């Protein structure tokens, strides 16, 4: 058990750094990219934030901010405990999918608390943007998860992986997979769904964070991104199944592939605003996922 805990923690930390480095690399200016700029930026950024003096806005709610930052770190880590990393997950719950869903929704609270805590207008607006975003993405996301559960007849992640031998759910239920990827961007407030941290809001939710608070916030946001990418592997990509390599290696390869896809999406797609996306989500994505659920439901009938 301790080895699994440490393995999960090490894998998460490595992937968090990898995602941040790749993102910095892709986001580096073309001129600096020629001379290898970008990859070291996460470390340099961490160094800068560590030596930064503590800073406090007028009458902030520091306790709420700290709870928010810690929740943003804990929620993805707890969500990851049900993901099989080759062998058994750290906690092989029979309601693994529900647990994952519940932990991921804690990010709503985390972001909102951080945005509220600073007593500053830009973080506050960013926090409310994220709540609106949650209302748009959460239902299609849950329908995608339930489609997987119906297909496997189980909410246990290892059962879902077992049920996919032969044909991955990404192929068997492509609409659910695509909707999952969109909702992954949204719950990680990443790239096209990153307006809670929008440039038009001077950085949004973390605008007033500095020093260690900002460092942990950034670690948490990359952890969310890593975990939503990692969850796609047992849910849709057959878990550790694959030729030659051991299961943990395949899990890692697939996780990295999804993670790269999400990071690249940030640099390919413009941001989506919820005042336009909300209608699309409710009137197009929800009916689509319901149709997908119906098809899968009919297929699993005895």
């Amino acid at each position, binding site marked *: 058990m301790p080895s699994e805990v440490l393995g999960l923690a090490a894998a998460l930390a490595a992937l968090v750094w990898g995602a941040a480095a790749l993102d910095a690399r892709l986001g580096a200016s073309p001129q600096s990219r020629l001379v290898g700029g970008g990859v070291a930026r996460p470390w340099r950024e961490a160094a800068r934030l560590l030596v930064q003096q503590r800073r406090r806005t007028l009458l902030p709610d520091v306790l709420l901010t700290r709870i928010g930052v810690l929740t943003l770190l804990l929620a993805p880590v707890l969500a990851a405990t049900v993901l099989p990393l080759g062998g058994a997950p750290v906690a092989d719950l029979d309601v693994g999918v529900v647990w994952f869903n519940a932990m991921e929704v804690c990010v709503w609270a985390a972001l909102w608390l951080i945005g509220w805590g600073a*007593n500053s207008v830009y973080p506050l607006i960013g926090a409310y943007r994220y709540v609106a975003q949650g209302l748009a993405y959460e239902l299609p996301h849950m329908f995608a998860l339930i489609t997987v559960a119906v297909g496997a007849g189980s909410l246990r992640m290892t059962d879902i992986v077992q049920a996919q031998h032969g044909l991955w759910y990404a192929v068997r239920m492509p609409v659910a997979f695509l909707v999952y990827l969109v909702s992954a961007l949204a719950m990680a407030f990443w790239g096209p769904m990153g307006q809670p941290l929008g440039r038009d809001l001077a950085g949004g939710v973390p605008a007033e964070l500095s020093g260690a608070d900002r460092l942990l916030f950034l670690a948490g946001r990359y952890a969310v991104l890593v975990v939503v990418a990692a969850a796609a592997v047992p849910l849709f990509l057959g878990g550790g199944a694959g030729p030659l390599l051991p299961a943990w290696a395949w899990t890692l390869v697939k996780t990295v592939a999804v993670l790269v896809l999400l990071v690249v999406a940030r640099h390919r797609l413009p941001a989506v605003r919820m005042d336009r996306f909300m209608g699309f989500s409710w009137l197009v994505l929800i009916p689509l996922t319901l149709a997908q659920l119906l098809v899968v439901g009919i297929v699993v009938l005895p």
Partner: protein
Amino acid sequence: MQAFLAVLGLVALVVVGAAGVYAVSLVVAPRGTLRVGPYLSGGRPREHALSRFHVRWYAVTLVFLAFDMEMIFMYPWALVVAEVGGVALVEMFAFLGLLMVGVVYAWREGAFRWV
């Protein structure tokens, strides 16, 4: 039981890690806490930012709540639909169909559009 101990260990690891970051920052950063005003493009605030926010997507939250309650029923349903068979599927989709009628009505009323 062992799984919960493992999860607890993981939580402890994260908390200790976060505390470590704060501790290192305390040691290496300049002393003291800087007190600043909220960032307002170089202006001073006339009032506190914390206020009753104009949540224009209020109607969406209500539609969401109706649907979200329903999702709780769907997790157990997902486990038994294959055993129970067609009846379970028909009943659930009749229910979802009714909810979708509500969504379409909300859309017609303009609940998903706000400016």
